[in-house]
């Protein structure tokens, strides 16, 4: 059965992140490998033509399948959604480094055991591992759809194993 993949983004307006996310989501959908939807927080004019269902973030609340947050705000909201069976956080940028900032919220988010972290590159993974003492298992750039499917499959297998042990 095809997995359902939901991207949670701040917006799909002009940005490097939105461009590649839409491109790779199209590939997943065109190749028939997944049912893909995009959920946005703010309404912007899309940076490229979107041939996929796009909805407001509130609709993702009960959406089943695999949900992928792309920013700290969407990750924090994803954690409160009861629908998704698998919750991933594609760490596109290091937004928590903006000063001034209090210590705590970012650590709680990145160390949340319900969230699987995906880094864009090895340098980002090293920063995440150093700052939050976590293991970053998945590293790939620009939402590479083949690697994304591998990561999802890995997470699904791991959850199945954990449930079997429990």
């Amino acid at each position, binding site marked *: 059965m095809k997995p359902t993949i939901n991207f949670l983004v701040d917006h799909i307006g002009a940005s490097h992140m939105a461009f590649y996310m839409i491109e790779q989501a199209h590939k997943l959908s065109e190749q028939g490998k997944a049912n893909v939807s995009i959920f946005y927080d703010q309404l912007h004019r899309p940076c490229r033509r979107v041939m996929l269902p796009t909805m407001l973030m509130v609709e993702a609340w009960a959406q089943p399948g695999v949900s992928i947050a792309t920013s700290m705000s969407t990750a924090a909201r994803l954690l409160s959604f009861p629908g998704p069976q698998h919750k991933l956080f594609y760490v596109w940028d290091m937004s928590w*480094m903006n000063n*001034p*900032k*209090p210590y*705590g919220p970012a650590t709680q988010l990145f*160390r949340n055991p319900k969230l699987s972290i995906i880094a864009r590159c090895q340098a980002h993974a090293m920063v995440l591992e*150093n*700052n939050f*003492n976590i293991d970053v298992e998945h590293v790939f750039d620009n939402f590479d759809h083949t690697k994304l499917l591998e990561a999802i499959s890995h997470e699904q297998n791991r959850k199945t194993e954990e449930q079997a042990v429990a």
Partner: protein
Amino acid sequence: MKILAQAIPGNTYAGFSRAAEAAGHSWVWWEERHTPAFDAFDEIGPELLFYMDMTRAMQKCVDVDGVATVQGLMDDQFRFIVGDQGLQCNYLVDTHMFNKGEVHPALFCDIGIACAPNPLGLKLCNGFAINIKILYEQGWPTTQYLGAGSLSDKRDLYRSSNVVLVDDPLEAIRVIACGSIPVTSNKDMSTTLLKHGVLVPYYDDAHELYDFHDEIILANEHQGERLREDLQKTLKGHSYDDALTVIMENLQ
């Protein structure tokens, strides 16, 4: 003993309050703008007063009731005037808050940093593949900076680091109380503490500090443990409990 303490912004006497309660004394906070001095002294009947600024009303109450006084100069410096005797204690650590405890899984690291950006810290952050975590009010231009932590966050960092880079004498003493090893690149701070009997290793070269961490602390567990024990011994006289004991002895 009944102790009355002027409630001062900044929680200056919080360390003394915990030490006094642990020693079985009765500690009462006094909000001067809500309760006049005469009412507070009549109601509580204190034997000891902790204050920052003495008003005429307070002075009158102190003189009439024969109350001993302790004046706080700063967060970690206190002058005691017991009778006609003057004493002073510097760099006091609240051992009820800063003490040995469990390593925090999110803050576990090789070198913790709790000071303003300095060349030694920046070289460590950019030149070595070691786990470094920085908690400080002032931002650092490095990826290891986690933000401004509360006192309890800093305590957790001190407990969870092998070595902590500091530039403030009070922080160095807190690090020792948490069972870790403070180091500094601030020569003045190291000298100041040495005058008070506390030795804080001084480094200005990142390679030397890295070697100290790698060869003495990590590779030789026994040596690291002995260093921690020696540092703990120098803490004597630098806790609020010790200062309170001195005050009580002088009162008697």
